[in-house]
């Protein structure tokens, strides 16, 4: 029923279809480009559209940008989804505990969350990746580390709201245990804004990964959109397409995720929209 409402809105439809296309790219990459993204296919700096079969041109070493974009989608989606799942697990746990139990647990957990939020996230991610040396897993770890605090905050606020509701009080009165109340009453009723935030979180993670790779802190063994942009940067004055083409794929993916997030939000709060 919710999926139908998401699909009924044009924004949600566009977002979902775009996202499915990008997932399709990620799945089909090894079949369409069996030689991988690092293979040299033509002379360097080949402009897009100048040779059939290499529609997006080549980079500084003569690698196929189209292949790079296809393989890059795998990295972006992987990092985005895994980092988000990690951030959600940590954030929801921290937020739920702080919100439901309050008092000391709340004070301690929220000050730690504050501390994380006062350190510039991207800078922190840069530092973490450089200390741990860049690889897919350290990048995921760094992104998850900087993105859980907002989830914790949001979850806490929602849990606080639901905790005070009369239906939760009524469950206390019938003698339900605290863990059961959290799992069956509080979380189901407080997670919908978190679900919406998750879509944005995936988008932010993709942007952060691209930013890290752009700075040369990507996993040197995998081709990501940020890696391509980093390769193109020195020649930005002449062959700017090497930066812009993968950049546009980042934008497209993030746009699709945001559209989907907005559509889910509207679908979850139909009454809010009517008013």
């Amino acid at each position, binding site marked *: 029923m919710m999926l139908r409402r998401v699909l009924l809105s044009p924004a949600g439809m566009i977002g979902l279809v775009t996202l499915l296309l990008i997932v399709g790219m990620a799945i089909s990459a090894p079949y369409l480009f069996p030689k991988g993204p690092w293979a040299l296919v033509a002379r360097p700096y080949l402009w897009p559209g100048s040779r059939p079969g290499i529609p997006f041109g080549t980079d500084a070493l003569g690698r196929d940008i189209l292949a790079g974009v296809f393989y890059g989608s795998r990295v972006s989606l992987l990092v985005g989804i895994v980092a988000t799942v990690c951030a959600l697990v940590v954030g929801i746990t921290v937020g739920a505990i702080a919100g439901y139990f309050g008092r000391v647990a709340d004070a301690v957990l929220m000050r730690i969350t504050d501390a994380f939020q006062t*350190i510039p996230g991207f800078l922190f991610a840069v530092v973490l990746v450089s200390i741990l040396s860049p690889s897919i897993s350290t990048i995921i770890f760094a992104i998850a580390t900087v993105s859980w605090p907002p989830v914790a905050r949001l979850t806490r606020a929602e849990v606080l709201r639901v905790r005070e509701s009369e239906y939760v009080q009524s469950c206390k009165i019938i003698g339900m245990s605290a863990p059961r109340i959290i799992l069956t009453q509080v979380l189901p009723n407080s997670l919908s804004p978190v679900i919406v935030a998750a879509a944005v979180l995936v988008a932010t993670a993709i942007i952060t990964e691209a930013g890290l790779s752009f700075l040369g802190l990507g996993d040197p063994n995998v081709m990501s959109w940020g890696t391509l942009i980093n390769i193109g940067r020195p020649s930005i004055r002449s062959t700017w397409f090497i930066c812009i083409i993968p950049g546009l794929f980042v934008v497209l993916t993030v746009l699709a995720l945001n559209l989907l997030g907005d559509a889910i939000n509207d679908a979850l709060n139909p009454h809010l929209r009517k008013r």
Partner: protein
Amino acid sequence: MDRQFWTYLGWRVLQSLVIIAIVIVGSFLLLHLVPGDMVDVLGGQRGDMDAELMATLRERYGLDQPVLVQLLNYVGSVLQGDLGYSYRNATDVLSLVLQRLPATILLVVCSVITAVFFGTMAGVIAARHAHRPIDVIISMIVLVFYATPIFLTGLGLVIVFSVKLKLLPIGGLITPGVDFSFLELVGDVALHLILPVFSLSLFYIAIYARLARASMLQVLDQDYIRTAYAKGLSTYNVIIGHALRNALLPVVTMVGLQIAELFGGAVLTETIFSLPGVGRLAYDAVFERDYPLILGVLLVCAFIIIVVNLIIDIIYTLLDPRVEISR
């Protein structure tokens, strides 16, 4: 400014101190995450250090002490303003950071102002004309801004305005080798800042526009707006006199939450536009494995952000008299 305000302020300052303490301890732990200590790094770089010299150095810097003692030493020196020594740059970390700070603060402050101004304006206009063509157009533009990474905006702006149109300088903060009068200097810096500021703030313009639109729509639905109309006020006066201030409250909160992110974005912007700020400093330090310097930057940024958040909280209490009860 009654007693309640001061109690509230005292409470917030206390909270901030706790946060600073957590950050300092956290950064110490982070430093210990680094494989090898700073003497190893130094030895690796110089290549000519023997074991005896390294041992002497360890003793001198207390690196042979138990971790807890090291932590206390670290906290003690941080509290005295000693953030360590950058061997790479042969200067102490604090003066290095302070020297680079003005450029970053200039960039961040200009970006916040730009983002809040254009963002709220777009949001309020969109809300005023909700579900009509203007709103749809604004919302679409905002969505694209929202989806574009800062470094891509930066590169795009450089390509269009510096490389192709040759309208604006490609990087740096001041045109080198020219003797400027004060006013000319201001103009020159402003010219250099246009692209960095817009590349950093475009994303935040989008955030504030979305937020301001949503919050304005919510405020316009409130009973006191109906009261204002019932008095006979015009729509313009209702929006400016009654709705705007209430609608700005979430924006103010958001600015506080995002100041940290802006500093993070400054790393990218300063790198792209070669601005001499702390972001660029941190970037260079990362590649030189100059960990005391990196942590120094993190600590100073965290400190500034905490202070800014405190100021924003005070502004908030001035904007919203209800804060004292809702907390």
